[in-house]
């Protein structure tokens, strides 16, 4: 034994034990796995959610210089800098953060006064900034030289043309609403309207114009009518092209000098660089959505392959969960070890699933399911795992990226882990459930189970939730059937393994080779990458982990200070009442203090993270994969005295706005306005929240509906399409063996024969051909092997319009029943008969005339018999004649049962019908037209290429049916009320009234036939090509047993020259076929006979189970009869 073999054996042993363990303790293992997943996913919390959030990096302002564009020069502090921090930023953003208030506040001021005069100061401020220039020894440096020069707006933004700067410095302030024109501002009667005129009405996804110009989120600006703090904030945003520290510091100091902010505590140490990732737009989403659609389709089709488990969908869900959580785990582990996957997880997930995911799960399931059912579940799982060992270990993966490779390795490990622990356990639970539910159902009573077994099984069912190890439970099976079933399945599984593994190994080898080539040819990229990875992973580099990306606007949680101010509006609202009271107490005037708190620090963080990208995109500058540097804001505090506020007040405003908290409406306003204010404020957030929630809900519902529709649309079509090999079938339809173990789905493809319009009434088959008849009366002949519809015999009504000329070729298509020349000739006789026939007591009034046709003369019969011998009767004789019809056609004799049941009280006038037959020396078939339109086929039988159909009007139709060519209606012999026909070399027709008719079939060569008949008109009976063109089939009534049974005959079987009939009168009779002589009458059943079976030896067994519910079945009698009959017949 070589080393590899030993290893292999050991591994397989280990897998066996592992499978045993998983199946024994499912729930603890699942819990353990869940904990593992959660633990591994924990690092994910630090990742930005969709992977598109901006990433920040801070450098101190002191000694700041733009990073050089060359990577190589920065080796020193490489570990600290993100790799995107290379080259100059797109722009430096300098914000001048203004807080302004009117102080002291007077009670008679209007609400609009809160922000009108503060806003009016923006023009002055902007002028100061714009005109600032640094004068030093090197000359004069103005803002124009350092600022970011912007050009045209995008053509699509005509609306904003007057509001955003063009052809000049990127300098944004609220003054842009009025084109930086103080006069316009003063003339503006409604500031709020001006500001909000460009606000989108719908859900806000990106930065609005108000946000852009104010430079801070709208709710912090304080520009509204219900601003209780009476502090207005806005920023002047300045985009700079170059970083000129001296210029900036001079600007800062000058502004601070002009507008001192005594209590400002803003820190000014750090420049924050914000790197923006590539935006995911609609264009990018479409391929992604497509891949996900493919993924779902793949999952759907894959789950259909799983068979022999309790719930396919549950297992499929488990498979998806396995793969998904393995993805999450691997991302989490990668993050933990410092490999930040830059690949968008959502993008590679579908490929990961498709390439590795479900297939292995399916392999696992298959190998488990293919183990013998009789083993206990634990052992089955264990054995399946053993089979699978080479399967899951060797996972190959198509990988296209260096990173993806690394990622995939981790992913595969976690996937393997999950498959080993999670999925196996779920599978064991599922299979156990199936055993309980299905095997119970499927095991028939005679599956040699000791009676105690069901009890023990139910006990086991009880025990399972309690997780006690299941007691060994074995269903003993006959080894023979068991082995038959199992071996091919095993083989197939092995083939399956072979194929899959081969492919996977090849792919893996290809990947390895490819990576090798890549390493060889591309040393720069990969090696540096790897070295960087190594340094990152080294223990010393632990501290130097790249900063966890924190998206700027979305997740401000990174900064504890900002944490405090995530919802700064709340404390304001809470303290409202107190402020109010204080104000009321303090009298007419109140001082407002502008405070600078930690919440004001880096106010831009509260902006939407798309704020800057959208601003720059207006000028056709993309920030994707680039970064901007945001300089610390310059605080500016403005105090305005009441005179200023009054001066700038617009005359119309006094009329429109109430005094702010006027004493007259103090009470009312105090109650109403806060409500309004808070509701407005909150309403804004809430509406957005609700919109998002509603959107999510709607999309969820749509998804569910979509999946449901998918299920509904796909499933019904799956039943029995032979193109789709893995159709879902009802379990009951499966050809299960006796212990309920159905062969795998791939082996059985139901052949669907479509074509019938109505319910199928009766069916007959001889192995090669299949004849079916539906309620309409249409008969179809199918090839049982291929499912082709060979022939369609439409309703017999067509026969009517046929004329007397018999066209050999045409007759089939137009009137397949064979429009014989006989029709005309018989017409007369038929009418004659009708006249002769006395009124009959009919239950069905449309059937009366037929009865006259049925019976043939008994004397005639004898004659026929003689003539028959005279004629060269080709093989309509059965075994007695010994003629082998197959020399001509195949087997020509047939066993037909035709039941046509007219519920007539009796056969009143048999004798009358005889006349018509006497006219012909041959009792050639009589087409009976009368009831044809309404008559339906009650029974069918088929043998060789002859089809016999018994119609409800009592008529019997015989056709020869060529396999490849349309058959013709050969002859029609009318028997009145036929219950059942059994034909074996002869046709036996049983009627509901208990009578039996024996017909004999003969073929004649047309030559003989003509000679015999002498009447050319009769020769027009078409001969089937199968029978050789000259052959004619003639059906003759040979015997009639008028009262074979007292009650309707329900069962009829013929074999070996004997005919057994069963009737509702609790008796069976055995007739001899040749002479219709009743040999035996079998009594003993206590109910109506429903089925009769004769085996070839001649043993009969009667059962009466289903349709005689009143009478209990008599099982002992059946067996007891068998030997009796056998003895009798042999004697």
């Amino acid at each position, binding site marked *: 034994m070589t080393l590899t073999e030993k290893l292999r054996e050991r591994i397989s042993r280990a897998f066996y034990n592992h499978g045993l363990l998983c199946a024994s303790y499912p729930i603890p293992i699942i819990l353990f796995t869940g904990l593992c997943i959660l633990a591994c996913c924990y690092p994910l919390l630090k990742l930005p959610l969709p992977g598109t959030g901006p990433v920040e990096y801070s450098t101190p302002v002191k000694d700041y210089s733009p990073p050089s564009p060359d990577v190589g020069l920065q080796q020193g502090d490489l570990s600290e800098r993100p790799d995107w921090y290379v080259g100059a930023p797109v722009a430096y953003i300098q914000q001048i953060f203004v807080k302004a208030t009117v102080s002291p506040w007077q009670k008679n001021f209007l609400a609009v006064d809160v922000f009108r005069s503060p806003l009016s100061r923006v023009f002055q401020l902007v002028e100061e900034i714009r005109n600032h220039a640094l004068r030093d020894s090197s000359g004069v440096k103005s803002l124009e030289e350092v600022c970011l020069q912007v050009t045209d707006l995008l053509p*699509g933004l005509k609306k904003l043309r007057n509001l955003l700067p063009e052809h000049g410095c990127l300098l944004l302030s609220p003054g842009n609403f009025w084109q930086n024109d103080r006069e316009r501002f003063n003339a503006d009667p409604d500031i709020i309207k001006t500001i909000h005129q460009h606000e989108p009405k719908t859900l806000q996804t990106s930065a609005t114009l108000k946000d852009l110009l104010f430079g801070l989120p709208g709710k912090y600006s304080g520009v509204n009518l219900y601003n209780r703090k009476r502090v207005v904030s806005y920023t002047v945003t300045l985009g700079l092209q170059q970083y000129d520290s001296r210029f900036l510091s001079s600007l800062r100091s000058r502004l601070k000098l002009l507008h001192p902010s005594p209590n400002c505590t803003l820190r000014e140490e750090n420049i924050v660089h914000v790197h923006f990732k590539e*935006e995911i*737009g609609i*264009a*990018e989403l*479409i*391929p992604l959505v*497509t*891949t996900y659609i*493919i*993924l779902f*389709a*793949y999952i759907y*089709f*894959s789950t259909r392959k799983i068979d022999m488990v309790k719930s396919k969908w549950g297992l499929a869900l488990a498979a998806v969960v396995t793969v998904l959580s393995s993805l999450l785990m691997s991302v989490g582990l990668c993050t933990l070890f410092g490999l930040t996957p830059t690949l968008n997880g959502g993008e590679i997930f*579908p*490929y990961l699933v*498709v*390439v590795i995911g479900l*297939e292995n799960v399916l392999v696992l399931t298959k190998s488990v399911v293919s183990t013998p059912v009789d083993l206990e579940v634990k052992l089955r799982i264990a054995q399946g795992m053993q089979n699978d060992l080479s399967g899951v270990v060797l996972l190959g993966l*198509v990988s*296209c*990226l260096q990173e993806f490779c690394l990622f995939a390795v981790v992913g595969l490990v976690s996937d393997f882990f999950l498959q080993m622990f999670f999925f196996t356990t779920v599978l064991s639970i599922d299979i156990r459930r199936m055993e309980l539910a299905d095997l119970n159902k499927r095991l028939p009573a005679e599956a040699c189970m000791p009676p105690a077994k069901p009890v023990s099984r139910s006990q086991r069912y009880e025990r399972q939730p309690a997780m006690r190890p299941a007691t060994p439970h074995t269903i003993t099976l006959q080894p023979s059937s068991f082995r038959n079933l199992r071996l091919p399945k095993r083989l197939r599984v092995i083939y399956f393994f072979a*194929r899959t593994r081969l492919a996977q190994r*090849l*792919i893996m080898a*290809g990947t390895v080779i*490819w990576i090798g*080539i*890549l390493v060889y*040819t591309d040393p720069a990229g990969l090696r540096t990458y790897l070295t960087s990875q190594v340094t990152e992973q080294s223990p010393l580099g632990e501290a130097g982990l790249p900063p966890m990306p924190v998206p700027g606007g979305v997740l401000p949680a990174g900064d504890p200070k900002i944490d405090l101010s995530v919802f700064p509006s709340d404390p304001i609202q809470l303290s409202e009442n107190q402020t109010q009271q204080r104000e009321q107490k303090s009298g007419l005037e109140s001082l407002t203090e502008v405070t600078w708190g930690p919440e004001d620090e880096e106010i831009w963080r509260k902006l939407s993270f798309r704020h800057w*990208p959208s601003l720059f*995109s207006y000028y056709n500058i*993309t920030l994707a994969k680039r970064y901007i540097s945001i300089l610390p804001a310059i605080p500016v505090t403005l105090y305005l005295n009441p005179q200023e506020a009054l001066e700038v007040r617009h005359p119309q405003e006094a009329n429109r706005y109430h005094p702010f908290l006027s004493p007259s409406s103090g009470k009312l306003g105090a109650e109403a306005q806060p409500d309004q204010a808070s509701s407005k404020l909150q309403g804004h957030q809430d509406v957005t929240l609700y919109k998002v929630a509603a959107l999510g809900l709607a999309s969820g519902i749509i998804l569910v509906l979509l999946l449901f529709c998918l299920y509904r*649309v*796909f499933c019904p079509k799956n039943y029995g*399409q*032979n*193109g*789709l*090999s*893995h159709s879902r079938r009802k379990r009951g339809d499966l050809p299960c063996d006796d212990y309920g173990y159905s062969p795998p789905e791939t082996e059985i493809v139901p052949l*669907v*024969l*479509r*074509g019938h*319009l109505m319910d199928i009434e009766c069916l007959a088959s001889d192995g090669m051909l299949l004849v079916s008849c539906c309620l309409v009366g249409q008969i179809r002949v199918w090839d049982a092997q291929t*499912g*082709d*519809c060979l*022939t*369609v015999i*439409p309703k017999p009504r067509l026969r009517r319009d046929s004329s007397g000329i018999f066209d050999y*070729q*045409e007759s*089939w*298509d137009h009137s397949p029943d064979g429009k014989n020349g006989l029709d005309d000739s018989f017409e007369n006789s038929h009418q004659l008969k009708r006249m002769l026939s006395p009124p009959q007591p009919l239950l069905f009034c449309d059937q009366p005339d037929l009865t006259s046709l049925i019976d043939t003369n008994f004397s005639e019969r004898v004659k026929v018999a003689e003539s028959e011998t005279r004629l060269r009767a080709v093989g309509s004789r059965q075994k007695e004649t010994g003629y082998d019809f197959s020399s001509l056609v195949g087997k020509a004799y047939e066993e037909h049962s035709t039941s046509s049941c007219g519920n007539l009280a009796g056969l009143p006038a048999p004798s009358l019908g005889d006349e018509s037959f006497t006219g012909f020396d041959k009792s050639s078939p009589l087409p009976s037209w009368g009831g044809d339109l309404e008559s339906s086929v009650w029974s069918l039988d088929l043998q060789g290429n002859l089809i016999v159909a018994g119609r409800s009007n009592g008529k019997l139709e015989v056709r020869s049916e060529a396999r*490849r*060519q*349309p058959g013709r209606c050969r002859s029609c012999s009318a028997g009145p009320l036929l219950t059942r026909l059994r034909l074996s070399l002869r046709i036996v027709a049983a009627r509901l009234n208990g009578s039996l008719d024996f017909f004999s079939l003969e073929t004649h060569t047309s030559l003989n036939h003509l000679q015999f008949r002498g009447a050319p008109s009769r020769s027009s009976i078409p001969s089937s090509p199968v029978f050789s063109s000259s052959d004619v089939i003639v059906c003759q009534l040979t015997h009639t047993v008028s009262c074979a049974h007292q009650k309707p005959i329900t069962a009829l079987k013929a074999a070996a020259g004997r005919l057994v009939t069963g009737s509702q009168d609790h008796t069976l009779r055995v007739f001899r076929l040749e002479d219709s002589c009743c040999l035996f009458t079998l009594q003993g059943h206590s109910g109506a006979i429903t089925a009769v079976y004769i085996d070839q030896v001649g043993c009969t067994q009667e059962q009466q189970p289903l349709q005689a519910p009143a009478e209990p079945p008599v099982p002992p009698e059946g067996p007891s009869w068998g030997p009796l009959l056998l003895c009798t017949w042999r004697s």
Partner: protein
Amino acid sequence: MAENDAMPTLPKKCGPYISSVTSRGMNLVIRGIVLFFIGVFLALVLNLLQIQRNVTLFPPDVITSIFSSAWWVPPCCGTASAVIGLLYPCMDRHLGEPHKFKREWSSVMRCVAVFVGINHASAKVNFANNIQLSLTLAALSIGLWWTFDRSRSGFGLGIGIAFLATLVSQLLVYNGVYQYTSPDFLYVRSWLPCIFFAGGITMGNIGRQLAMVSLEQGVSCLLVKVLIYMSFLPSYIPTSYLSCGCR
């Protein structure tokens, strides 16, 4: 039973074959339509994959850019995919060796997914040079064939399709109908034949699977299927790559 009513008028010689013949013709047409729409759909989608590499950050008209490439690309792709999808089963039939390898929808789904993945990789992965990219894609395409097809006839036909399509695109570029951003193989990208090959294999896979769907179903049945297939069987048309780089 449309066939039933029509049957009596047909000459007798056709006999029992009539029904199957008529439905086969109908089936062919339906399959062609299905494949055509699959082709058009994937042409649009995979086109986007190529375009979006250069898409601006906030294009005001993202949706229009889907249709901004030449209008004739999707119909061409659709037609090509229909031809390929019908050609494969037809060839199988004529060669008398029906394709039995992994004939199931889940395999087809995987094939399509892998193919889209190949396109995704070619669009997203930044390789050092074009040779590497082409070699990688070639290896992946061969892997696709080995994994899902594995028939010599399929391989041959795929090669033929790739050759023909590359020739056509060369001619088109030569005549200035469109152009590639950075041609490195005469006038086109060197990985183009690989993509064409993979697309041919994929469409052939779909076509073969479609051909296995029972012919006996009614037309309405199949039309319902058409809709389902359209939404769930996105596959790929090789010619969608024609529009790559055409601006």
